[in-house]
């Protein structure tokens, strides 16, 4: 009896792993394919320049002190400047903004060569770079779904159709 149980404990795992080896991989080819994030994803923070009233609440709320209020010549009040090197993407600034001037989107590709480039001036904050121009190789966006007890990868949109 114990021999049979032993053999079962050897052969069954082998069969299960072999089944996985011939099934479809779960990973995606990232710079060419990208997962679709859900609505309200807490990614890069951007600024609606005309809505900001310069109250500085975001700067005071930020736990990591990533936001600094800077003066801009020709404007009456100061505007937030975000250091993404310190930002932890908690988006408390987005939540506390009384005018809804700050908002977050699904872009997380913020890597730069120089550390200073991570400090986003209000002008840069209010002109967010679209995803297509950051990931130039992106061909399709994918969402993971469950169909009949298996994971399936549904193509959401091809880049060509989008453009």
């Amino acid at each position, binding site marked *: 009896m114990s021999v049979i149980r032993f053999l079962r404990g050897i052969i069954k795992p082998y069969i299960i792993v072999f089944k996985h080896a011939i099934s479809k991989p*779960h990973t995606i080819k990232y710079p060419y394919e990208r997962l679709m994030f859900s609505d*309200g*994803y807490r990614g890069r923070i951007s600024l609606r320049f005309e809505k900001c009233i310069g109250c500085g609440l975001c700067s005071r709320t930020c736990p*990591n002190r990533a936001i600094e209020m800077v003066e801009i010549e020709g404007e009456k009040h100061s505007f937030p400047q975000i250091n993404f090197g310190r930002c932890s993407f908690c988006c408390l600034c987005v939540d506390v903004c009384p005018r809804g001037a700050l908002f977050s989107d699904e872009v997380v590709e913020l890597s730069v060569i120089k550390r200073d480039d991570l400090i986003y001036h209000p002008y840069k904050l209010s002109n967010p770079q679209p995803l297509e121009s950051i990931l130039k190789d992106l061909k399709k966006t994918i969402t993971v779904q469950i169909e009949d007890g298996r994971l399936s990868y549904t193509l959401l949109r091809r880049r060509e159709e989008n453009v």
Partner: protein
Amino acid sequence: MIISWGPQHPISGQFRIILETDGENVLKLTPDIGFTHRGIEKILENRTFLQGIVPVERLSMLDTANFLLAYVRAVEEIAEVDVPPRAKYIRTILCEISRINSHLYALGLIAEACGGYPAIFLWTVADRELFLDVAEMLTGTRWSYSFFIPGGVRRDIPSGFKEKVLEVLDYFEGRLETYRDSWLENELFKRRARGVGELPLDKAVTLGAAGPTLRGSGFRFDTRKDEPYEAYEDLDFKLVSMEEGDSYARTMVRYLEMVESVKIIREAIENIPEGRFRVRVPMRVPEGEAYVRVETARGEVGLHMITDGSIKPYRVKINSPSLRNLYVLSRMPEFSRLLVADVPVVLWSFDPWFLDADR
């Protein structure tokens, strides 16, 4: 011979154990912690109660929601705020998702610790992705939720959330069977883990083990049952414990807890009450003191907070489960025979997370 296990070993993490060995037998075992000390307790003294939710999560990046819950509950207890029931249910759901995340990772890590290059480590990571997706739908981010604030939660449940969660749970139950068949019933794994690192009940209690380590030795204790918080009082779940006290029992406790967590999420999401999900908590919390206990994936965390009536806490002290389990590990060679090859298995059957041991 004195050899150092870690930090350059593949699965040691930011951690080191100094082993005194005689051949392959371990005579003395000294955990060397502090590689990731960041002074979180001091940082919390310099943050307002709202800002504190970000650093307190960095205690344990695998199980963020439960550690955050301890902090948030301490603030609410001092401020004497009643959290609306809807927020309590949402918190419970996220805490259990966080627990499943952590236990899945622990299951993968113990597989990795046993050697070879087991596929199950990456299967657990792949399935964890689904729960990260669910959490992302609710909170807007995948790991560091920063989702609980004093007085409730930050967002309400989005539309389609319930269907998505139930779908993921159905899939996950099938996957749990795969894990059982391919790893927990794997005869070679049983041989590596059974009878290894035995922790008798009396030792577990006197040395102060926590969480699945304690329950794996047969002590039936779970803060969720012992002192129910949030919505656990209304929910029906079993307290999992095993008698053997070895590495296999501890792994099995975590596995069965995942099964229970699935049940809890199912029940909570069906019975979620309507109403507000947040109440206002003033910036200034009155002078006071609170000690709250929360059952994290690694065991009970105790958070002691003292306030002096300002917008920041006067002092926060965190009693973390990983540190207590590492102390149990350091006393292990006294009552249990250990070989060098057993050290990674026993360590990861305790499932410590060095971030919250170092704080």
